């Protein structure tokens, strides 16, 4: 797999393409793009079969290790790749360490190993056991192992530990990658750690940038501990950190950020030159029975940003979630039906909400790419920000 970028500026919005994928030569992914967040190999609530009702375009599935740890042993005997195993052979896969929807608990870090939280509790991975999994999963893209357990309030000591752990993971994983026949075509993403301390970030970059020949892209790691709180991070706080990193990264490599950023911050990050996100925001919303209703196009018929379908006012509201939306949920089901399903805890409730949310989010990214192309991202940012602020006021 190769990444081609159409711009050479350090810290500015840009268009790119992921293509020349070994097993899928006809597939290419345009960036800025969103990976589809999965848990246990499925987009939460939506099986791969149902996803075909949402989109038939090629997608990258984000596969957090936490939900896949249970298959560690089975995958050593399985002949195919992880995308075959999870029942989505036509998708690309990106193996990640942590799940952006679940809080990475703080204070469980250790020397030269990192914890993940599986259904059976805490499990530690070191560079060797992590790369064993990567080799047996054979993902198209994977994050190198990192200790990204830092946030805005992390101590110097924690940051320095995160740095030393991640530098040695970087070296060990990359060495293993270079020796591996199986991973010859896998696209490597190197996490960049260092919390909110500029000096630490710079120190980290210095220790890895000399040797990035086999690295396809970078993950801006260590900004948050995942989970729903990422949605409410203040952009002003993360902006200087991200800017500083992007200014030092080679421009021709993919830039990835993980987490359920709200749409306003997604645009802000795109403006700075981030290429790849994930759809965990859709899941976070669906879990609180909320559907995205913000206008993407000026012609969209909506005066809300987000609606909560559990609200009793939808009891006899036979309109779709979002008038004019072409997703399966909006073309066939009403708010009243979805409200009924949610209030009696039926499985179909979150399915219909999630279908709409993923559809809307994919449409949002399509619009972002169009705006970058036509140099009109600013207008989209103004519109989404205004809708977001009005929503905050009415809450």
């Amino acid at each position, binding site marked *: 797999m190769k990444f081609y970028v159409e711009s050479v500026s350090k810290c500015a919005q840009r268009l790119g393409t992921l293509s020349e994928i070994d097993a899928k030569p006809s597939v290419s992914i345009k960036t800025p793009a969103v990976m589809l967040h999965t848990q246990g190999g499925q987009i939460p609530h939506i099986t791969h079969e*149902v996803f075909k009702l949402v989109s038939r375009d090629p997608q990258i599935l984000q596969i957090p290790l936490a939900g896949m740890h249970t298959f560690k042993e089975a995958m050593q005997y399985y002949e195919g790749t992880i995308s075959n195993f999870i029942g989505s052979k036509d998708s690309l896969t990106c193996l990640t360490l942590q799940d952006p929807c679940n809080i990475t608990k703080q204070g469980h870090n250790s020397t030269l190993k990192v914890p993940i939280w599986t259904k059976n509790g805490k499990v530690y991975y070191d560079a060797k056991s992590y790369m064993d999994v990567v080799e047996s999963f054979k993902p198209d893209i994977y994050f190198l192992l990192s200790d990204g357990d830092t946030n805005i309030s992390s101590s110097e000591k924690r940051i320095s530990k995160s740095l030393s752990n991640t530098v040695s993971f970087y070296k060990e994983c990359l060495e293993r990658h270079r020796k591996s026949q199986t991973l010859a075509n896998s696209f490597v993403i190197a996490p960049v750690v260092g919390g909110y301390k500029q000096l630490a970030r710079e120190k980290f970059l210095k220790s890895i940038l000399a040797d990035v020949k086999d690295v396809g892209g970078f993950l801006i790691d260590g900004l948050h501990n995942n989970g729903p709180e990422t949605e409410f991070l203040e952009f002003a706080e993360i902006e200087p950190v991200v800017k500083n990193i992007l200014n030092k990264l080679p421009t021709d490599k993919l830039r990835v950020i993980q987490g359920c950023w709200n749409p306003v911050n997604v645009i802000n990050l795109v403006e700075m030159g981030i290429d790849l996100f994930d759809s965990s925001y859709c899941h976070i919303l669906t879990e609180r029975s909320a559907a995205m209703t913000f206008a993407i196009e000026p012609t969209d018929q909506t005066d809300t940003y987000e609606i909560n379908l559990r609200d009793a006012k939808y009891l006899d509201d036979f309109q779709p979630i979002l008038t004019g939306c072409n997703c399966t949920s909006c073309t066939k089901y009403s708010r009243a039906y979805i409200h009924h399903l949610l209030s009696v805890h039926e499985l179909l409730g979150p399915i219909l909400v999630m279908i709409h949310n993923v559809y809307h989010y994919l449409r949002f990214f399509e619009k972002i790419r169009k705006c970058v192309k036509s140099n009109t991202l600013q207008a989209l940012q103004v519109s989404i920000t205004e809708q977001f602020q009005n929503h905050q006021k009415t809450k």
Partner: protein
Amino acid sequence: MTTKSPLVFTLIAECHTTKARVSRMVLPHGPVDMPVFMPVGTQGTLKGMLPEQLEELGLQIMLANTYHLGTKPGVEILEKAGGLHKFMNWNNCLLTDSGGFQMVSLLKLAEITEEGVRFQSLNDQKAEVMLTPEHSIEIQNAIGADIVMQLDDVVRTTNPDKARIEESVHRTTRWLDRCLQVHKKPDTQSIFPIVQGTLYEDLREISAKDHIKRHVNGYAIGGLSGGESKDDFWKIVHLCTNILPKDKPRYLMGVGFAEDLVICCALGCDMFDCVFPTRTARFGCALTRTGQLNLKKEKFKKDFKPIDENCPCNTCKNYTRAYLSGVVTVYPSACHLITEHNVVFQMRLMKDIRESIKQDKFPEFVRKFMLDLYPNKEYPTWVRDSLSAVNISLTL
């Protein structure tokens, strides 16, 4: 003057050995090929399956529960929505129960009088509510299912009090008449009477004979599958199908295990429903012709075969037992995958039964089916007895 019938029944083929038959009924929302298994979509949805997925599978009819829908979303919303078909976007046929059984089984405090079933509502007010035959039909009219059930006086098959059971038989017929009287949509909905009488053959006979005097489009056999022994169960089914007319569908309520379906088809039943295939999916249990697979078991962790190699469902085409084993009971979408397989399993079984009857090879089908299930030929007594009552010997 002609009135349009909401149920047109055609007998297509009969088995020359047993009482099994293939037929088709045309309802306002389309045809139903019988014998048919109807999965249960209690609250206007079937365990995480989208209605369009079910349509794609070729499902012709499903069941919904009046008690649940009457409570939530309630008659008012259902009427505003234009009925359950529109509310849930299901274009094929629906059948609703009367709500009576749900009450007696779900609510310990239900009290039955001549007027109806009195119970304490499950909603927050905990008010005392009365479900009468009239009220049940009113709710079922609002739901708008193609087939609706009369409110019946359900007595558990394990209740030994014959006087009480005799009372329930006559009361059920009186309630049938009250239901038919207040039915507002006879052009689009058929009310089925329910034959009661628990395990007393004389009472079952009275019940069935009373019901067949009424002008209705089909009949149900109720009050079974409630903990009675299989030896008692099949005899009552056999007796009822001997009395019920051949030119109308016969619906055996609450039956859905593969083995029971095969036998009750042989005994002449046409329609079945049961929550089991969809409920069990939730616990990671997949159905196959050789028995049930509990996918949570350790032995499937490295089993890269599908649930069933011959199954055409999406789950069997795309997923291994090893994968399913790691996700069942952990993620809701895994439950949808097993549900799809189990629904397809039931539909395929019924289709195979229909095909074998049409080719007049049903007895061979039954013998093969039982051998797959009991490879060492240790057939349960009730299986041998019930099949020999319809001229199939398993010892051949």
